[in-house]
């Protein structure tokens, strides 16, 4: 039944209700979208126009000067490259830990299963906190290293439990068939469970990618070397300079670009990859995987 036909069945009051509701949702959606449009418009506006307070919604005196400024800054590309290393390396490492572990935890023949599960789940409710974690990373010699950022955040209880539940729901008959053919655990996992759990693994992968891409706090704390910082930390440095130091901000202003247009351009460039994976992210949480996931 199409939308129009459906509407014909409604009373006048219902129609008014439906349209009012649509209007309100449209308003809410627009207000969600507006800040992004605003930033994008700033990034494409002439610095002078921004400084004069002319930019509200659409670019004024369209220019790509701010982008030119950004892409000719080697520090931007270094941080962009680093973010790629952390995202790809971190996500692959996470999967290498999480998938086999979730499989093992889902097998009834694993001794002490209850205790392993408790050990992992406990960390969702209690953790030592910022300072002991930092001191531990320092004592392990993982400050200022790519490896430290990648390995130090490889696992989390939530993802393991999510995938374990998915594996537990796989009917025993699938495994039995593979066992008849003489498959060992690694083969069962690879040939049976991973293909069946594709949606769940995809979800975990996407959430790892997004959280790696967005993560900045620990990168800011653990990395001193400017050559190793990810994009978000670089962006933070630019933005804090904007809010702290007016002289620095004004030193950057020329007629073509201003501080606002440059930092907006970096923001736009760092949102784009998130937008690229977003359709898949949305597909996976529309299936309700994240919701049915965590139950014990």
């Amino acid at each position: 039944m199409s939308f129009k036909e459906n509407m014909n069945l409604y009373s006048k009051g219902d129609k008014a209700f439906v349209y009012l509701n649509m209007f309100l949702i449209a308003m809410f959606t627009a207000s969600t979208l507006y800040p992004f449009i605003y930033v994008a418009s700033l990034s494409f506006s002439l610095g002078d126009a921004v400084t004069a307070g002319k930019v509200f919604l659409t670019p004024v005196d369209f220019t790509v000067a701010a982008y030119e400024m950004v892409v000719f800054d080697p520090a931007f590309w270094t941080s962009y490259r680093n973010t790629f290393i952390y995202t790809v390396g971190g996500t692959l490492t996470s999967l290498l830990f999480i998938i086999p572990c979730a499989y093992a935890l889902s097998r009834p023949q694993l001794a002490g299963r209850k205790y392993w599960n408790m050990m992992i789940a406990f960390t969702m409710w209690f953790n030592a906190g910022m300072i002991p974690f930092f001191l531990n990373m320092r004592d392990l010699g993982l400050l200022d290293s790519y490896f430290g950022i990648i390995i130090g955040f490889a696992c989390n209880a939530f993802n393991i439990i999510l995938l374990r539940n998915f594996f537990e729901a796989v009917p025993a008959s699938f495994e039995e068939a593979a066992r008849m053919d003489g498959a060992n655990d690694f083969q069962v996992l690879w040939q049976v469970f991973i293909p069946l759990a594709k949606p769940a693994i995809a979800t975990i992968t996407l959430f790892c990618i997004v959280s790696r891409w967005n993560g900045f706090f620990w990168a800011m704390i653990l990395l001193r070397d400017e050559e190793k910082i990810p994009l978000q930390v670089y962006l933070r440095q630019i933005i804090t300079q904007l809010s702290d130091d007016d002289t620095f901000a004004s030193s950057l202003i020329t007629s073509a670009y201003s501080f606002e247009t440059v930092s907006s351009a970096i923001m736009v460039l760092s949102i784009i990859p998130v937008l690229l994976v977003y359709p898949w992210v949305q597909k996976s949480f529309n299936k309700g995987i994240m919701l049915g996931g965590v139950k014990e």
Partner: protein
Amino acid sequence: MEDINHSLSTPEPMLLVKSRRVVKHLRKEWQLYLMLLPTIIWFIVFLYKPMYGLQIAFKDYSVFKGITSSPWVGLEHFYTLFNNDQFIRAIQNTVMISGASLIFGFPIPIILALMFNEIINPKFKKTAQTIVYLPHFISAVIIAGIVITAFAPSTGVINLMLNAMGFDSVYFLTKPEWFRTIFVGTGIWQEAGFGSIVFLAAVAGVSPSLYESAVVDGASRFQMMYKITIPCILPTILIMLIIKIGNILEVGFEMIIMLYQPATYETADVISTFIYRQGLQAAQYDLAAAAGLFNAVIAFLLVITANTISKRVSKTSLW
């Protein structure tokens, strides 16, 4: 000799049988343990070892002596903390900010879910959902960057609009009285859409037969929402509320670090930012670890209590 042998001979075979069984089990299932092992080691090295390191909360920690050999000082750091106005202020601010986020932020996802449910045009619904879920996936740095840009005194859109209406510019981010409003508002803007998913799932679970019989009785759509949908999703609402209360000490501190400045510490400094400044910036590790331990213990108790209550409410635990 005979006697000794005899006394030993009874437990020995038992042990042997047991260890033989273990060996046999491991020989058969070693692959499973191999799969489990790396993650267990990871949890020990990265999450449980820091818990051992938490003892510095009760020690006079010195970098040179290390965690284990630093001398104990008992509860000294806790006395210092509770006599520290900044720490007390941080606790108050944490509760204030979380409380405000809860009061203003909690109802909005529910209302959104109910409204989404009333949209019949599937394309419109999907587009709107795609857009309102998006901010959840954008990093704190970018969200803060947008806020800083939009609230900037001379070029930001907020002040431009104030100017257009004849008001003077306000440098919002240096004003303590504005911090909570801006922070909580930003949080709602970022998370309300994504937060509606859980309620939408609950709405989808309402039996269609209830609506069918209501249509037969001539109920309007608003009446159906009010009399059927809301009561049906009430358990979900309750559970989510309990969970939120349980997590009241969790504040999006990455965002606060981006947005606050000494001028606004008065209202913006929360427990985690206090720990960050004392520990990581001023290198007072032991004192900051004590603050962290206090925070973690209270948070743990709150979450456990919330979980127990939600178990009773729903008969199924969320975790």
